[in-house]
């Protein structure tokens, strides 16, 4: 149980994390996971699954109602200088110009500010630094907000729907900038999005939230390997009897197509295929009752270590 030096550093660790909003019920409940440092993780889940809440708590903007959350080996908000957060509505001060917004970034993050990096992102979009934020389109604001987030050279980036307002070209380009920057500096990224296909290219880690918990967590390759799309003649019970967990099944023609969590090899009679990330995510979204799966690196350490 001693802290093992071989284990990869942990950027984010949640244990029994919960957040309630008044009487509306819980946005998160008993949510536990760990995000190893250096991963680029996709945070997916249905609307209202608590994605934004989780990101805001990690950024030190909201206090959890229960449980603990450790961010870069500290309490949330302890290392504000090393964590960047991009909120869903991309708040910026409308009365400032782009140049003033970036100066504010420099003034508020004096220890880490990389003016060249921030300026480059703004330039790429062909934006005039003298234009006011209030005159920008949604996508242009996103670009400035991202410049502000990347300019502080964070070790952990929490991005809430970062690309939602961007046109496909800008999205592709900004995602490329973001990923190149993260790869170069070893930044850990946790990014929520509804566009799963887009995440598949950029991310190597997945956290799927549902019912207030992490339903699926781990490296994307590991998760895909653990699941198989099987097609053949048989019933879901046949698969279950073999120890596989059927996440979702549907009749296709005269046979059955199912996404299963394998336990050992699948019987000869079934045609097997590795699912795409989208298939995996959709199957789990459609089957809220499926048991959770967290790969070992994403499973939180026992309570005693985190306390």
């Amino acid at each position, binding site marked *: 149980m001693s802290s093992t030096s071989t284990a990869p550093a942990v950027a984010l660790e949640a244990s029994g994390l919960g957040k309630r909003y008044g009487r509306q019920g819980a946005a998160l409940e008993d949510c536990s996971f760990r995000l190893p440092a250096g991963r680029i993780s996709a945070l997916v889940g249905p609307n209202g699954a608590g994605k934004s809440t989780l990101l805001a708590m990690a950024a030190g903007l909201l206090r959890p109602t229960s449980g603990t959350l450790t961010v870069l080996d500290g309490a949330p908000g302890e290392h504000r200088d090393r*964590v960047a957060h991009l909120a869903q509505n991309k708040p910026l001060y409308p009365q400032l110009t782009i140049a003033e917004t970036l100066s504010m970034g420099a003034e508020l993050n004096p220890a880490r500010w990389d003016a060249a990096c921030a300026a480059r992102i703004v330039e790429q979009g062909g934006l005039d630094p003298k234009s006011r934020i209030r005159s920008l389109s949604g996508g242009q604001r996103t670009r400035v907000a991202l410049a502000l987030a990347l300019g502080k050279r964070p070790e952990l980036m929490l991005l809430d729907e970062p690309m939602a307002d961007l046109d496909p070209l800008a999205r592709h380009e900004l995602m490329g900038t973001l990923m190149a920057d993260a790869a170069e500096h070893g930044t850990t990224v946790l990014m929520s999005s509804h566009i799963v296909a887009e995440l598949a290219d950029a991310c190597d880690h997945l956290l799927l939230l549902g019912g207030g918990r992490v339903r699926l967590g781990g490296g994307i390759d590991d998760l895909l390997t653990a699941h198989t799309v099987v097609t053949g003649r048989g019933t879901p019970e046949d698969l279950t009897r073999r120890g596989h967990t059927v996440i979702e099944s549907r009749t296709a023609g005269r046979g059955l197509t199912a996404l299963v969590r394998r336990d050992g090899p699948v019987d000869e009679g079934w045609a097997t295929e590795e699912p795409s990330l989208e298939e995996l995510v959709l199957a789990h979204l459609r089957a809220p009752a499926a048991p959770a799966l967290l790969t070992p690196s994403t499973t939180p350490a026992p309570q005693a270590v985190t306390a």
Partner: protein
Amino acid sequence: MSALTLEAAAPAPAPPRSGLVRTVLRLHRAALWIWLAFVAGTAGLLLWLLGPGADTAQRALDTYGYSGLIMAMGSADEYSSRFYYADTLLTVGSFAVALFAGGPLIARELETGTAQLAWTQSVSPVRWLAAKLAVPAAFVVAGTGLLTLLYHQLWTAHGNLLIAGIQPRALYFSLGPATVAAPLLGLALGALIGLAVRRTLPALAFSGFAYFLVYAFRGNHWPFQGRYQAPELHSRSRAITATGARVADPDCYDDKACLAKHHVVGFSREYLPSSDYWPRQLLETGVLLALTAVAVALAFGLLRRRAATG
């Protein structure tokens, strides 16, 4: 205590205070200019009242005594009403401070999420709120402090040109350190309401109402002050005769022949210095500052409960 441990543990130093102050100044540039214009304009009015504005009334007092002031000789009685314009402006300015604190300073930022943007830079919510309160407070103290000093000068110089009644007494007793403390309380109440309500429009309404309560209690209506004495009707005006003796006003009004008959060559008037002034002022200032401290403490408590601070 958490700030201490953080400073010891974190290798990266917290941003120097100047950066945060510059940011707050930049964000509220418009409000800052309006405030400076307000202070300059009100100071201009006070200086005018202190200088050329008082000439007519002073001449009326010198020639006809108190009667000259109340008999509407030219603009003599207008001076008495203009004297209170500056007080009205100060009241309006203090209201504006409370509304500004409730709306644009705090609630609007929470509503649009820009406060959260600041908190995800290297600035903790507590430092953010501290800067958001300290910078405007410095300008409020400097501005109202200057205006109060000028007003006090004006009272000393020309308080004797005012027509006696409840109004000059109310002004006399309300003018002093409490004039500076009241908008500070407005600032603190506005910030507290902004943090509690988190939406601009309701925060504006509640801040306005809260400062209205402060305003209503000010000017000697605090329960702890009791009532001040009924306004004396005696004008305290004395006539000066050719021999230099000070005698009672012969009640000649503007009858020059009557004045000549009484050998009156001038008048003097001393109005309202009261031994009661400082006890009342200091008590009121103390209460206002104590309420300010309570509001600020509640605001920080609320912020700490909401956001993870570190």
